């Protein structure tokens, strides 16, 4: 446990030692801030059926920023170690492969969660200025942030897998970006293909991150997406672990 914690803290510190962390943070907060501002000013002009918090988590801006941050966060995880050769001292120390894989995964997850902390402020500021809550209930906040956590886990695990497959960070980033974007669009296929059966449409709907977010941001905690994302994360991490172990045979 101590080794895992040591690896984890090294990963988290690694983010804040590199300029990538700050660039991602700035980029993300800029987009999120603009998103929030637009949503509020939009709602100022007309009557709408949703709350500020729902609008914020379901806007195009949000999704645009969202799919872009994962390749940036995860590309360096393994690829950098392979490139610099630091994998050699790392793996000749008495640490287990799974400790390294989980250390990197949770390190990235923690950094990802840190990105979201400032957005909590938005809702606080909104309440203070307008004297109106940004959401209709506390559960809506909980649902939104829970969905962020679930999606984050899944997408970061995809990033882990692509990073372990190459020593080139750019390649890792491009592959994970494609994979995440394709998965994301899989949920949109139901709106494009009109001549498919409703069963197919439902099936595709189960994969739709957008739909999940709509549900969760209303405060409806559906167990199906929870099972989907947690199990897919486990699958991706298992694959990462296997791919990481296979390095020994590929040398």
């Amino acid at each position, binding site marked *: 446990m101590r080794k895992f914690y*040591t690896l984890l803290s090294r990963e988290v510190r690694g983010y804040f030692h590199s300029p990538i962390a700050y660039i991602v943070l700035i980029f993300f907060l800029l987009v999120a801030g603009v998103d929030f501002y637009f949503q509020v000013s939009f709602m100022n002009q007309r009557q709408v059926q949703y709350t500020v918090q729902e609008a914020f988590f379901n806007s195009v801006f949000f999704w645009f920023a969202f799919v872009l941050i994962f390749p940036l966060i995860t590309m360096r995880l393994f690829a950098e170690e392979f490139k*610099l050769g*630091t994998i050699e001292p790392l793996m*000749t120390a008495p640490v287990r492969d799974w400790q390294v894989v989980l250390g990197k995964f949770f390190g990235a997850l923690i950094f990802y969660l840190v990105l979201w902390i400032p957005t909590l402020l938005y809702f606080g500021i909104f309440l203070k200025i307008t004297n109106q809550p940004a959401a209709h209930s506390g559960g809506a906040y909980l649902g939104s942030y829970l969905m962020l956590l679930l999606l984050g886990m899944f997408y970061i695990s995809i990033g882990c897998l692509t990073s372990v497959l190459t020593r080139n960070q750019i390649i890792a980033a491009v592959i994970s970006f494609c994979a995440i974007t394709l998965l994301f669009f899989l949920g949109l296929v139901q709106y494009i293909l009109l001549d498919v059966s409703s069963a197919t449409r439902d099936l595709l709907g189960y994969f739709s991150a957008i739909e999940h977010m709509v549900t969760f941001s209303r405060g409806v905690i559906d167990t199906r997406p929870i099972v989907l994302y947690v199990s897919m994360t486990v699958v991706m991490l298992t694959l990462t672990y296997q791919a990481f172990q296979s390095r*020994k045979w590929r040398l």
Partner: protein
Amino acid sequence: MINVENLTKRYAGQPAIQNLNFEVGQGEIMGFLGPNGAGKTTTMRILAGFMPPTSGRATIAGFDVFSQSLQARSHLGYMPENVPLYNDMRVDEYLVYRAALKSVPPRRVAERVGDVKELCGLKEVGKQLIGTLSKGYRQRVGLADALLHEPDLLILDEPTIGLDPNQIRQVRELIKNLGKQHTILLSTHILPEVEMTCSRVIIIHKGRIEACDTPDNLLGKIRQAGGVLLEAKTGTDNGVEELKKIAGVRDVMTDVDGEWKIFSLRVESGADVREQIFRLATDRHWTVRELTQRRATLEDVFVELTHPDVI
């Protein structure tokens, strides 16, 4: 401490090392010698548990490096070639991190980090970013890291590569001192280093062990245990024919320095022909200004074993 049996590693079918067999006993300083690409790094990486062998087995302190990798790894300190380090960490931070990874008890971490910094001369750079360190300091950080958990065995891959002569001397002294408490396997292609530090030497060439002995025995075994240098005025004599007649002389090469002739003689192992040369010179009335026996160095052994055609 190290036991290697029939160790073979192939890369894409090409053998990097073939059927290595050797042992390193407790407290030995074993030098691992060979030209570039001979398989030194491959062997060390296998021993350090970084990659598995294609066939054969190796144990460290009785633990198989592959099937009991974790126990084997906790008994050794490994310093990889070129010392890859995290450039974004400070020296102190890195050593504390490594100590935790190597299961140094939490209350001893500060003490151990202090000790290895003292030992490796890292006191004044503790707060510095590793990325800003010079090659010599990076090397020392790597060595300090290898020593952190007080391992029984140190495996050092080219510990003095890229260092200046002063630093090489310092590292050599350090290794010698470490050899008092640790078993050490070190690779190098700097020969004087081996002669000065190692108790035994393995010479590896094209993935095979060519020799494994103490430096002294290796020197003794070599066919041409050096040569003799003679500088003389031989008058009307040619010199070469006369010298070649002496028993034990294999070959004579000449050079000219003004009216002086310089003869380089290759002699049989163990033969001392200087007395005969002196007799010859007095008989033929040669004026001699130098007559010296050149001692064979490990370099000769190395060249002979890894490159027989040159001689």
